[in-house]
C-alpha cells in the first residue's frame, strides 16, 4: 500500500508549474525575517510571550518570545528533553503554563482548555500515538468531525436528526482514509493497525476537524521510510491547502525536505531560528546538539534520492511479505 507515489507531489516537483508555488511564496515572505530566536514574522498565527513551565525546579519550557508564520511549515527541533512536547502541551491546552501569554489568530488563548483550542482550529497529534484501539478505523475518523448534531444526548436518540450529517461525515472520512491509504482498513479495529498506520490514522482523524493549524509531535517516528515519503507528501499537502503546520522532528533530512522555517529549542529555550538550509550551521544549534549528534551528518540529503527510497520500499515490502 505504501509503495505508490505520494498523492501530493513533493513541492520541488512543482517548480516551474503555473501559478505561485506555496513554498516559494512563503520563502519569499520569510526571507526578510532576522535569523534570531524570537524573530517577528510578517503574518504570525501564534504569538507567545514569556511562557514558562517548570517541573520541580527545572524549566521544561522557558520561551521569551515565539511567532509562528501563518500558512508555513515550521519545524521545531532540539535534543531529547528540550521541551518540545511540553511546549506543544501548553499551546494546545493540555498543560498549564506557570506564567506567560499567547495568542492564536490574534485572540488571546492562554488558559483555554484543550477542547476549546481544538474547536478554535488548533488540532494536534501525540508523540505516543493515541489511536482509539477498540474502535474501528472509520469510527475513529467519524469521531473527529466537529459540530455533530448526533453528539447531543437527546438528539442522539432521534436518528432522523443526524443521519444525513452522518452520511456526509462518513463520505469525507472515506475520502481522507483513501488519501492516507487506510481505506481498506476502515472496518478493522484501530488497535490492529501497525505503528506507522496509527500515525497516519491519527493525522487523518485530526484533519476531520477542519483545522486551521496542525501540530504534529514526531509524525515520522517509527514510520518505515517508504511510508515516510508519503507522509511528507501529506504534510506539504496540508500547507498547500492553506493550513499552518508546526511539527516536531528529530530527522534533519525530513526537516530540510519539507519545512519553511526551523525553530530550535534546547533546555526549554529557543536558541535559534532560521530557514532549514542554513540553520544547522548556527553555532547555537551545534552547541545544543553536541554530544548527542556530533558525529552525525545532520543535513545529509542522500535519503531523499529516488533510488534510495526505492531500495527502502523494496526492503519494506520484503519485510511485509515475510510476516
Amino acid at each position, binding site marked *: 500500500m505504501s509503495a505508490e507515489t505520494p498523492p501530493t507531489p513533493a513541492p520541488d516537483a512543482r517548480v516551474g508549474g503555473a501559478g505561485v508555488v506555496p513554498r516559494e511564496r512563503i520563502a519569499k515572505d520569510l526571507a526578510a525575517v532576522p535569523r534570531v530566536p524570537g524573530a517577528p514574522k510578517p503574518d504570525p498565527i501564534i504569538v507567545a510571550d514569556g511562557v514558562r513551565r517548570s517541573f520541580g525546579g527545572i524549566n521544561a519550557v522557558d520561551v521569551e518570545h515565539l511567532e509562528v508564520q501563518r500558512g508555513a511549515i515550521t519545524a521545531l527541533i532540539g535534543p531529547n528533553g528540550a521541551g518540545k512536547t511540553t511546549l506543544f502541551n501548553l499551546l494546545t491546552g493540555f498543560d498549564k503554563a506557570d506564567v506567560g501569554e499567547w495568542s492564536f489568530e490574534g485572540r488571546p488563548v492562554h488558559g483555554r482548555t484543550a477542547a476549546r483550542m481544538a474547536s478554535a482550529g488548533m488540532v494536534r497529534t501525540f508523540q505516543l500515538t493515541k*489511536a482509539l484501539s477498540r474502535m474501528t478505523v472509520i469510527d475513529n475518523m467519524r469521531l473527529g468531525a466537529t459540530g455533530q448534531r448526533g453528539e447531543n444526548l437527546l438528539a442522539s436518540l432521534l436518528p432522523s436528526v443526524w443521519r444525513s450529517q452522518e452520511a456526509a461525515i462518513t463520505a469525507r472520512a472515506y475520502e481522507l482514509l483513501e488519501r492516507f491509504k487506510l481505506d481498506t482498513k476502515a472496518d478493522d479495529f484501530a488497535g490492529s493497525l501497525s505503528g506507522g498506520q496509527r500515525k497516519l490514522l491519527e493525522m487523518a482523524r485530526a484533519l476531520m476537524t477542519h483545522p486551521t493549524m496542525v501540530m504534529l509531535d514526531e509524525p515520522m517516528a517509527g514510520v518505515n521510510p517508504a511510508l515516510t515519503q508519503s507522509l511528507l507528501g501529506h504534510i506539504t499537502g496540508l500547507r498547500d491547502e492553506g493550513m499552518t503546520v508546526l511539527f516536531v522532528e528529530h530527522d534533519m533530512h525530513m526537516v530540510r525536505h519539507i519545512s519553511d522555517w526551523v525553530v530550535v529549542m534546547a533546555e526549554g529555550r529557543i536558541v535559534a531560528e532560521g530557514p532549514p538550509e542554513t540553520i544547522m550551521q548556527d553555532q547555537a544549534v551545534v552547541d545544543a546538539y553536541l554530544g548527542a549528534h556530533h558525529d552525525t551528518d545532520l543535513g545529509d540529503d542522500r535519503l531523499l534520492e529516488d533510488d534510495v527510497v526505492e531500495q527502502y520500499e523494496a526492503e519494506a515490502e520484503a519485510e511485509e511479505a515475510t510476516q
Partner: protein
Amino acid sequence: MDWTRILTNVAGEAFAPATAAYALAAIGLNIHFGMTGLLNFGQAGFMLLGAYAYAITAIAGWPFFASVIAAMVAAVLFGILLGIPTLKLRGDYLSIVTIAAAEIVRIISRSTSLTSLTGGNSGLSGGDGYKESFESLCPFPDGSTTLWLWTYPNCTSNSWWLRLVAWVAVAIGCLLVWRWMRSPWGRVLKGIREDEDAVRALGKNVYGYKMQALVLGGIGGAIAGIFYTLPTSVQADAMGRTTTFNIWTILLLGGAATVFGPVLGSVLLWTVFMLVKSILRDAELSFITSTQSEAFSWMLVGLTLMLLVIFRPQGVLGDKKELAIDVR
C-alpha cells in the same frame, strides 16, 4: 427433593422485581463503565437515594410519577456532586469517591436523627404508605392470579403489576442504551473510554460527556432503587457495598458494553443463586444449616464467577474480538 418446587422458585426468580431492579442498576452501571469507562463503585448509593426520594415523597402524598421524578432529580444532584470534584481527575479518583459517598449516604439515612424522614435504623415499610401511589395505578382487580406455575398478588407489594412495570422499565432502559450505543453521542463516550486525551484533542468537551454519563447511569440506579424496594421495604442496609458488588458482578457476567448483558447477567446470577440455595436446603445435609447454606451458595456463585472471568473474560454476551485488542 421436590424438583417442581425448586424449578418453580428458580424460574420465578428470573422475572422477580428484584431481578429487574438489579438489571436496571446494571444498565446504569453499563453506561458508566461499559460505555464511558467510569469506575463507579457507589451504584448502591444511587439506588438508596432513589428509593428514599421516592418513598419520602410518596408518603408525603405525591403522585407516582412525581415521586419517580423526585428519585431521578436526587440521582442527578448526587451525580453532579460526585462528578464536579472527580471527573477532571484520573479515573481512580471517581471510584474512591463513589465508594465513600455511597457509604455516607447509607450511614446518614439510617441515622436516628433522621428517623422521622427515613425511618432511621428500621427503614420504611409498606405500613408507612409509600407503596400506595403505585398500587393505586394498578389496572387489575384485587386478589391474586396464578399464571401457570406462579401465584402472586395482582396489585399489592410483590405483585404482577410491579413485575409488569419493572420489566417495561428494563425494556425501555435497553432500548435507550441500544440507541445511544449506535449514535454519535455513544461514539464520543466510547472514545473517552479508550483515551480521553485523544477525544479532547478533537475538540470535545470530555468533562461534560463524562458528567452526562455519570448522571444518566445514576438515574438508572435510582429507578432500580424504586423497584427494588416496592416489593419489600426501604432499608438502608439492604443497599450497601454488597449490592454495588453484585451489580458489578452482573455487568461483568452478562458482558459490559453490550445491550442485553446487564439483563442476562441479572437473570443468570439470581436464578443460579436460587438454584444452589434451594438444592442445598432440600438436600437436608446434616452438616450444613440453612444459614450456612446461604453463605455456601454465595461461595459457589463466586467460584462460578471466577471460572467465568478466567475462561470467558468478556462475559456471556461480550465481544471477544473487541476484548482481544491489546490496548497498547
